[in-house]
C-alpha cells in the first residue's frame, strides 16, 4: 500500500490468525419480520467468497448488514478481528477505510465525473494533494480499463463501464476487503466474463479479500474459493464449501438443484 494512503489515524492491529470477515450469530430483521437468523461464517484473508442463493433468500440483506447499512438485531460482524457492529464512531470510520463496496447499480455519484467519483474517498481519508490524487485516480481507472474516461459522467457510460468505474472507486483506498452486490447483474455474458477476469486479476495482484453476492452460476464456478448458500425457508445458511464439491456431493436437494440449474450440467 502506498504510504500516503495509510489511514490518518491507525486502527489497532489484529492477530495474524483473525479472518478477514467474521460473522457470528447474525440475525437480520425488517421490523418484526426475521429474514435471516443464526448466520455464522468466516472469510479467510485473500479468499474469493460467494454468498449465493435463490431470489429473495436474503443475500443482499446479509450484505447490507455486513457493510453496516443495516444494524443487526443480534450478533456481530468483525473485520480482521475488530468488531464492526458494536463500536464507537471513530473505530467504525477507521474500519470503513479498509472496505470497498461495488453496488449492484454501481452507485456512482451521478453529478460527479469518474475522476471526482474515484477521488472522493481519497479526499476524505488521505492527506494527498490534488496532483497525487489525480495520479491515483488515473492509475485506478487504468487498472479497470477505463484510462482516458476521467472526465466522463456515469450517464455517458455503458453498464459494464459503470461497473468497472464503480470497482475503481471501491479500490481507491486499496481496501483489504471488497464487497460486491450482484456484479454481473444487467451485463451480457461477454462483459460479465470480462468483469470476472478483472476481479480475479485484482485478487491475484493485490491479494484483496472479496465477498461477492451472486446467483450467476458461471461466475460462481469460475471465481469462488468457497460459498455459503442461503435459503428463504430456512432463514439461514444451508450449505458451505467449494461450489463444485457441493454440486457433486451435497445431501441437500435444494443445494444440488441450485448449483446444477435443476439438474443441468453447469
Amino acid at each position: 500500500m502506498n504510504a500516503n494512503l495509510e489511514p490518518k489515524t491507525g486502527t489497532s492491529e489484529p492477530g495474524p490468525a483473525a479472518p478477514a470477515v467474521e460473522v457470528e450469530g447474525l440475525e437480520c430483521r425488517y421490523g418484526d419480520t426475521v429474514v435471516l437468523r443464526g448466520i455464522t461464517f468466516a472469510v479467510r484473508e485473500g479468499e474469493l467468497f460467494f454468498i449465493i442463493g435463490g431470489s429473495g433468500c436474503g443475500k443482499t440483506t446479509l450484505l447490507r448488514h455486513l457493510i453496516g447499512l443495516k444494524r443487526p438485531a443480534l450478533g456481530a460482524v468483525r473485520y480482521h478481528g475488530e468488531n464492526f457492529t458494536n463500536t464507537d464512531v471513530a473505530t467504525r470510520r477507521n474500519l470503513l477505510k479498509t472496505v470497498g463496496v461495488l453496488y449492484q447499480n454501481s452507485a456512482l455519484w451521478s453529478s460527479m465525473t469518474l475522476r471526482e467519483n474515484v477521488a472522493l474517498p481519497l479526499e476524505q481519508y488521505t492527506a494527498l494533494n490534488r496532483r497525487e490524487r489525480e495520479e491515483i485516480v488515473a492509475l485506478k481507472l487504468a487498472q479497470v480499463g477505463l484510462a482516458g474516461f476521467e472526465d466522463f459522467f456515469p450517464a455517458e457510460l455503458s453498464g459494464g463501464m459503470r461497473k468497472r468505474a464503480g470497482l475503481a472507486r471501491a479500490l481507491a483506498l486499496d481496501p483489504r476487503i471488497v464487497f460486491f452486490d450482484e456484479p454481473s447483474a444487467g451485463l451480457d455474458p461477454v462483459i460479465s466474463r470480462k468483469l470476472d477476469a478483472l476481479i480475479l486479476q485484482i485478487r491475484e495482484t493485490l491479494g484483496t479479500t472479496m465477498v461477492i453476492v451472486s446467483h450467476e452460476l458461471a461466475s460462481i464456478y469460475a471465481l469462488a474459493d468457497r460459498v455459503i448458500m442461503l435459503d428463504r425457508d430456512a432463514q439461514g445458511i444451508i450449505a458451505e464449501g467449494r461450489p463444485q464439491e457441493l454440486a457433486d456431493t451435497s445431501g441437500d436437494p435444494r443445494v444440488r438443484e441450485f448449483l446444477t440449474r435443476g439438474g443441468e450440467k453447469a
Partner: protein
Amino acid sequence: MPSDHAPGFLTGMGLAATDLWRQTSDFAGFVGECTLSAIGLVRRPGRFRWRDCFAEMQQCGAMAVPIVSLSSFLIGLTLAYTGAIILRQFGGDIWVADIVGLSTFREMGAVMTGVVIAGRTGAAFAAQIGNMKTGEEIDALETLGIAPVDFLVMPRLLALTLMTPLLAMYANCLGILGGMIVSASVLEIPPSAYWIETQSIIDLSDVSVSLVKSIVFGMLVAVAGCLRGLQAERSAAGVGRAATSAVVTSILLMIVADAIFAVLFNVLGI
C-alpha cells in the same frame, strides 16, 4: 386478521396523531442532525463542499430570478388594483403606495418567494436526493463513512438560506414596481409621488421583517426538501411522492412560521 372496513373516528384520530408525532420527531431529529453538522463544518470549514454550494446557489438563486420576477411583479400589480377599489372612493389614491409597500415588505415578498422556491427548489432537492437513494448513491456515501447530511444537505441548506433573502428583497422591489405601474397608468399617480410615499411608509423594521422571514423560509424549504428526499422510497413513484411531500411540507411549515412571526412581531412592536 385485517379489518374489511375503514377505522372508526377515534381510531382514525389516534392514527393521525401518531403519524403527526412521528413526522414531528423525524423533522426535529433531522434539524438536530443539521445543527450538529453545521457546528462540525464551522470547526472544519475546509471539509465543506463549497463548490457544490456555489452550484446550488446558482440553481436556486440566479436561475429562479425569472419566475420570482413574474410572480412578485404580478402580486404588486394585483395589490395595487385591489387597494385602489377602496381608496378611490375616499380620494386616497396615493395610499395605494402604502398598501403595496407594506404588504410586500412585511408579507407578500417573503411569502411569495418562499412559495416559489418550495415549488421549484424544494421539490428539486427531494427529487435529486430521492433519486440518489434509489440509485444506492447514498448507501455508497454511508459505506465510505460520509454523512449524507454533511455531503448533500449542508451545501443545499446554506445555498438556499443565503439566496432566499436576496430573492425576497428583489421580489419586494418588483412588487413595488408593479404597484407603481398600476398607479401611474390607472390612478394617474406620478411615479415620483408614489416613490416618495413608499419611502415614507417603509422603514428599516419592515426590511428586517422581510429578511428574517425569508431566511427562515429558505431554511424550512431546504430542510423539508432534503428530509423528504432522504425519506423517499426506493422507486420512481417514491421519488415523485417525496417531491410532492416536500412542497406540501414546505408550504405548511412556512404558513405556521408566518403565523408565529405575526404574533412575535406584534408582541415585540416591530
